[in-house]
């Protein structure tokens, strides 16, 4: 039996009026893969991700997520995915525990599951003491780790992370990536955008978006060879310099 890909797109396009934010991108993401989605500001990464998450309706092209069609089965897709947006979006007037309970609850998880999972995450993040603290009282690094934990709380097949480590210190970033590796090792497909090229090196495969198109897609090693570069940083600069679109 042919293995179903986690994500497939075929000429997926999004236009806002005259402006083509995402220009006919086609790619596939394998199950259990960590897929790096790179690009300069304004290249169209977030828009592409929002289409895959069912937050934005594509203008044309095809896409499937977890084997489901983004046009017709968008509400079904939502059961299989987790999403962590650029903006921190947990309820900061709820406590750590209440956030987990709420998100677990609206995904239809049982009380026993929620209780067990909450205890596991609190233990894992060393947040037992802060379990009943309001989220707004936590430092940013902790908030981001918590947001990730909440995004994968319901054990989705695929998790979408939009610049999850923006503004976070290097130590916390390293811890964050450990969490990503753990999730991937448990079979979760990770689709992540980032501006940190060291993070790009951690990905199984990387795509680089320029002006709404995908200009390169390979393993970090393959890309470095192809562009004759010593680091992903150089690869990115070579590609991103071609951009004509103004960054936002």
């Amino acid at each position, binding site marked *: 039996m042919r293995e179903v890909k986690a994500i497939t797109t075929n000429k997926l396009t999004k236009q806002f009026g005259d402006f083509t934010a995402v220009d006919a991108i086609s790619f596939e993401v394998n199950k259990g893969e960590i897929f790096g989605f790179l690009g300069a500001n304004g290249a169209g990464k977030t828009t592409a991700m929002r289409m895959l998450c069912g937050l934005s309706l594509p203008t044309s092209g095809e896409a499937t997520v977890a084997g489901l069609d983004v046009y017709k089965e968008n509400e079904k897709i939502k059961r299989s995915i987790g*999403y962590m947006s650029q903006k921190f979006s947990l309820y900061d007037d709820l406590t750590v525990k209440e956030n987990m309970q709420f998100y677990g609850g*609206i*995904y239809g998880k049982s009380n026993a599951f929620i209780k067990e999972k909450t205890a596991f995450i609190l233990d894992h993040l060393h947040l037992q003491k802060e379990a009943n603290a309001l989220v707004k009282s936590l430092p940013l690094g902790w908030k981001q780790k918590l947001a990730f934990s909440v995004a994968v709380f319901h054990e989705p097949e695929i998790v979408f992370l939009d610049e999850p480590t923006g503004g976070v210190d290097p130590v916390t970033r390293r811890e964050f990536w450990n969490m990503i590796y753990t999730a991937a090792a448990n079979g979760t497909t990770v689709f992540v955008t980032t501006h940190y090229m060291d993070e790009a090196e951690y990905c199984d495969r990387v795509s680089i978006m320029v002006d709404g198109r995908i200009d390169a897609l390979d393993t970090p090693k393959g890309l470095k060879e192809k562009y004759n570069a010593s680091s992903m940083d150089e690869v990115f600069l070579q590609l991103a310099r071609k951009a004509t679109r103004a960054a936002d």
Partner: protein
Amino acid sequence: MRTLRFLLQKEFRQIFRDPSIIRLIFIMPIIQLMILPWAADYEIKNIKLSVVDKDHSDYSRQLISKITSTGYFQLAVYTNSYPEALQQVEKGNADLVMEIPASFEKELVKEDQATLFLAMNAIDGVKANLGSAYLRSIIQDFNREVRLEWIQFPRFSPETQIEITSSNWFNPLMNYKYFMVPGILVILLTMIGVNLTAINIVREKEIGTIEQINVTPVKKFHFILGKLIPFWLIGLLVLTIGLTIAWLAYGIIPVGSFVTIYIFAAIFLLAVLGLGLLVSTYAENQQQAMLVSFFIMMIFILLGGLYTSIDGMPEWAKWITRFNPVAYFIEVMRMVVLKGSGLADIKKHLLIMFGFAVVLNSWAILNYRKRS
């Protein structure tokens, strides 16, 4: 159903953690109902009267003391020059000028006829109208007294006279507070209903949590219900507080039944909450939501029949009031509180309000999109 439970639990936690909402629920009704009914008074008191007395007679003094003893007028200026009195009006020290001519008493006694001159500052039209009307009736009264003093009436009046006596139904003492308090209570419920819901959802938009909800399989209908139910309950709580204040502070006990009031209020709240939801689905940020709901509130209040009677409005304005849920509720409140109307009497109002609730909420649900 289980999803809804989690949504409600989250809403209530957030509401009870927000001190400003708690303040709004308890303090707003108290302040509005304790202060506004006293200030929003139809009776005009303390009209500043400027008297130009050129007569200085017994009668002129009697007339002045009769006027000032009513409590409606204050003798601000007493002079014998009309220009000076007018100057006081210009300065804002007087609202009304009454000129008593030099021969006032003489003419009254000898000729059986005398003239008085009234001039009023019509910048505040209501004050000018009411002030001169009060003054006229006081002078007429004075006139009758003088006639009684000088003329022996025959046993049967040679002229036919119609004397009017009236009795005020439903509000025998014409206590305007009975009339205003139920109306203010309606405004209060509307403000809380429209504003709280509009601001609440827009805030989720601003913070970005609504997007997090939109990537979950939560149904639109559940999400909206999760927002509606808490504020609906808060609205009914505010109504209860308001009715309690009306009773404690003004002794207003509805003649009709509380059940009627609550049934209508429950449907009315659904309608205004739906309006708040609708505003929130269009507004991008809290400022927009605030401004739009403020604009709607202004129209609701001014075209709601609280201060001015709808029957006295021009046709086009009356037509607009038919789309104003507040106008229906104010009417129903007054009917039930003062007249004791029952459910059968307000059947039409109930149906129309139900229509508002269905239309506004369906519109809000349709316009709320999880995917843009």
